[in-house]
């Protein structure tokens, strides 16, 4: 089955603009066990990992997606005539990481952690669709509640919030900073 499955999966992923999820694939290939699909995806990823390829098959944002390999970034940008991709500003990244670690969270809770009003950053992040509003908090003023979106995961190459840098990694980094300075 796996041999028949491979080219089909390749087609579906090739056409996808967003990470193609296992559920979506399973719903197209009715009756094929998810375990078979998963195994085939893994072997597909392996074969695309060959060094003579320009593309990679990525497992990101909770699904599978083709992407160009990082080594060829300069060529892609030359082709698209893009100087460089814009990174998030420090303010946006700070706000986003607070949403990521503390979600669901409101604007005033974010601002309290940052010590800075974060309304503008939240607006930018909403426009970039990296966060979403999931409702109102039952508190005075009914503030909006924010969460990260699926696009957020894909943006950082994560498959779930579990993939966020762990507390230990953060502690390790802080420790290194300290010793680096001493």
């Amino acid at each position, binding site marked *: 089955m796996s041999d028949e499955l491979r080219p089909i999966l390749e087609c579906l992923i090739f*056409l996808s*603009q967003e990470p193609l999820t296992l559920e979506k694939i399973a719903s197209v290939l009715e009756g094929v066990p998810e375990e078979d699909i998963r195994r085939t995806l893994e072997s597909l990823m392996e074969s695309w990992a060959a060094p003579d390829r320009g593309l990679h098959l990525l497992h990101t944002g909770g699904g599978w997606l083709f992407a160009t390999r990082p080594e060829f970034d300069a060529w892609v940008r*030359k082709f698209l005539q893009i100087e460089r991709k814009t990174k998030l500003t420090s303010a946006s990244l700070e706000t986003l990481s607070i949403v990521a670690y503390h979600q669901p969270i409101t604007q005033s809770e974010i601002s309290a952690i*940052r*010590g800075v009003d974060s309304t503008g950053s939240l607006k930018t992040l909403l426009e970039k669709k990296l966060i979403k509003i999931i409702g109102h908090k039952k508190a005075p003023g009914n503030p909006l509640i924010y969460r990260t979106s699926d696009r957020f995961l894909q943006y950082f190459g994560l498959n779930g919030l579990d993939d966020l840098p762990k507390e230990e990694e*953060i502690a390790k980094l802080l420790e290194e900073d300290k010793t680096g300075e*001493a």
Partner: protein
Amino acid sequence: MTDPTIDAPLPEPSAADGYQVRLEIFEGPLDLLLFLIRKKKIDIHDIPIAAITRDYLDYLDRKEQINLDREAEFLFIAALLIYIKSQMLLPRETDLAEGEDPRRFLVDRLIEYQKVKAACSLLRDKEEDELLKWKRGFLPPLPGAGDLEFLEVSLFDLAATFSRILKRKEAEGARTIKGKDISLEGKIKDLLAVLAAEESIDFLEYFERQETVEDAVVSFFGLLELIQSHRVRAVQDDLFKTIRVWLRRERGKGHGHE
């Protein structure tokens, strides 16, 4: 074959520039405070409040321009520092227990903020790695994938586009015609009829065609209603570009149900 320009990383503002750095380099008062603490190699759990307050106020004095919004945030922490110092100077009959250190509140905030900064730098690395991988989604989206997420947030885009039209309509001097009831159901029927005939419509164009502001407003609600009930699909290539609206085929049937 010449390799196109090798990427040189953007110069990141460095905290090591010392006191000459400008306010904008710091994300906020906590950032500045952390910078001062690290510069003096102070233990964050045992901050000499008087010394750090002096440095902090010194720094505020030196900065070039004043932005009132940011100023308030910086002054709040200055006031907090002075308050903490005053609490520490107060004579007490008994020694404070450990949890009662007046600095506790500030220290907790600083530690939390420090973690955020560290998480940011880890996420920044990931971002940089990911930005080198180009995906097809970078090109304008085809109808088909990830629409739930797209529609969810594009309410803002719709609203932004819509308010532009309203402004234009107002400029045309549209007047209110009283006594004419416009029903949402009617507008939805209109929209669906136009969609059935034309297959897809240009959102801007469609609303331009509306006679009055009320017509446009109710049509807009109608459109939102249709999007919410998954009867149409709205796609916008780019912010402030027009939005195209399609009828969804075979709603609820098939397997594309998210």
